[in-house]
């Protein structure tokens, strides 16, 4: 345990140093991260305007609140492991990570969290400025903020475990681009990112409730904005925990098999 704490601290320091070196890449990530929710926010605001102010009880101000929070939840949860893993495996970079006495996932988690801590310093002011522009209707209460904390942490853990699991596909398939893209289209429409869940057609909404995507993006947003009744809240937390267990189990299974399959291409 003490060793792991050391590892995280060391990784934290190197990542900060690394990121300051590549400020350009940082800006590019941020631009994409910020622009995408702003696009959907603009489109849905235009829809609300064309419908005389509101779509199914969502006003432009509600959309603004929803997407500004969604931007932060997305920022907290996103990983780039699905591309990185392919690169590690194709180039054989995974080999040195495997011979270390700790699971490579620790290095990655430390790296990822540090990156987000750094970028949050930029994301927060951007959200504040956007709040001035879009005039959101934040319906946050003390209780909803309290419920948001565990929802966000579970969401981050779930997204992490799930995307790591999908990334392990790279052990068997050398070009994972198609898989990644399929995942992102599903994520876009079923997580509440392109469309807040209540606006999806009925049957799709029902499917989305059962899948993990909504649980790691739209759900925490809805929790913070107090859009969910108590029973939905409890179901949501239950679903988050259940999916997290499933994802961790899957990750363990695919990782163990994948590492055995791994033959260090290029090494």
């Amino acid at each position, binding site marked *: 345990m003490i060793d792991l704490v050391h590892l995280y601290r060391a990784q934290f320091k190197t990542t900060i140093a690394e990121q300051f070196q590549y400020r350009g890449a940082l800006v*590019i990530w941020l631009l994409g991260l910020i622009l995408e929710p702003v696009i959907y926010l*603009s489109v849905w605001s235009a829809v609300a305007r064309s419908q005389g102010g509101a779509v199914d009880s969502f006003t432009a101000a509600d959309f603004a609140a929803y997407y500004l929070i969604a931007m932060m939840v997305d920022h907290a949860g996103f990983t780039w492991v699905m591309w990185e893993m392919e690169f590690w495996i194709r180039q054989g970079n995974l080999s040195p990570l495997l011979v270390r006495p700790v699971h490579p996932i620790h290095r990655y988690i430390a790296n990822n969290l540090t990156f987000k801590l750094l970028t949050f310093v930029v994301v927060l002011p951007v959200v504040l400025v956007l709040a001035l522009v879009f005039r959101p209707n934040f319906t946050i209460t003390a209780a909803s903020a309290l419920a948001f904390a565990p929802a966000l942490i579970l969401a981050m853990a779930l997204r992490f475990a799930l995307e790591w699991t999908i990334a392990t596909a790279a052990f068997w398939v050398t070009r994972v681009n*198609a898989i990644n893209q399929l995942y992102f289209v599903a994520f876009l429409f079923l997580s509440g990112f392109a469309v807040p869940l209540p606006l999806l057609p009925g049957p799709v909404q029902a499917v989305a409730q059962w899948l993990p995507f909504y649980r790691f993006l739209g759900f925490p947003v809805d929790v913070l904005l107090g859009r969910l009744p108590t029973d939905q809240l409890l179901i949501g937390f239950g679903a988050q925990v259940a999916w997290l267990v499933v994802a961790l189990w899957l990750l363990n299974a695919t990782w163990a098999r994948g590492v055995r399959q791994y033959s260090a291409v290029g090494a």
Partner: protein
Amino acid sequence: MPRYLHLLWVHLRLGILNELQYRTNLGVQLIQSFMGLATSLLGLGVIFSKTDNLAGWRPAELLAIVGVYSLVSGLTQLIVRPSLSRFMEDIRLGTLDFTLTKPVDAQMLVSMRQIEVWKLVDVIVGIVVLAVAMVQLGATIGPAEAVLFVIALLAGVTIIYSFLMILAICAFWFVKLDNILQIFQSMYEAGRWPIAVYPPWLRAALTFLVPVGFAITVPAEGLVGRMTIGSILGAVGLAIALPLVARWFWRIGVRHYSGASA
């Protein structure tokens, strides 16, 4: 000019020969194009289940935007994007020397040297979607609209080429900039929708800072008969001015280049 067309043809043939070695890439590209189209169409489907127009655009008109989006993205990723990526890599490695010493215009050469043939799938998808949109729009398309569309499309592609060229030339100073073309990609995503939906500051940025509006919205406007004199004049004007700026910037950049290996 025939000389450059011949050069383009040679590189096209090389590109095809090269890609025929990796035929699974065609499968990957087909999936990618399909996903891109699915993203656009699902988005349209959800939105038009809630409204009958988006910032004044009707469904068939937005379909035309989807078509132009795919068409322009296919055209730029077919030649311009891969060539410019290679150009920036050449600056970093110093191998640009070999290009500069060739007896043709170096800017032309670096702009057409790498061709990703499978991106033609996006071009075809774009044309098919446009055809469907036109059928849905029915009789409203006359020869005038068709001509305006072609002019605006050519202007749009020219603008995007010049813009990407200007970004790529920055590599003469900053060397490691391989992600700069990615910035453009995330801005380009905004072009899936008519720029009228965006708030004024973003619309201005998407028109003048990153000319996505001129490249996608304006040609689609031409097709659906929404074009104003101002927007077509703006597009053509920019399509004349921006290549000149790119040329001027190229000259400064090349003068700055000293070769990395020499």
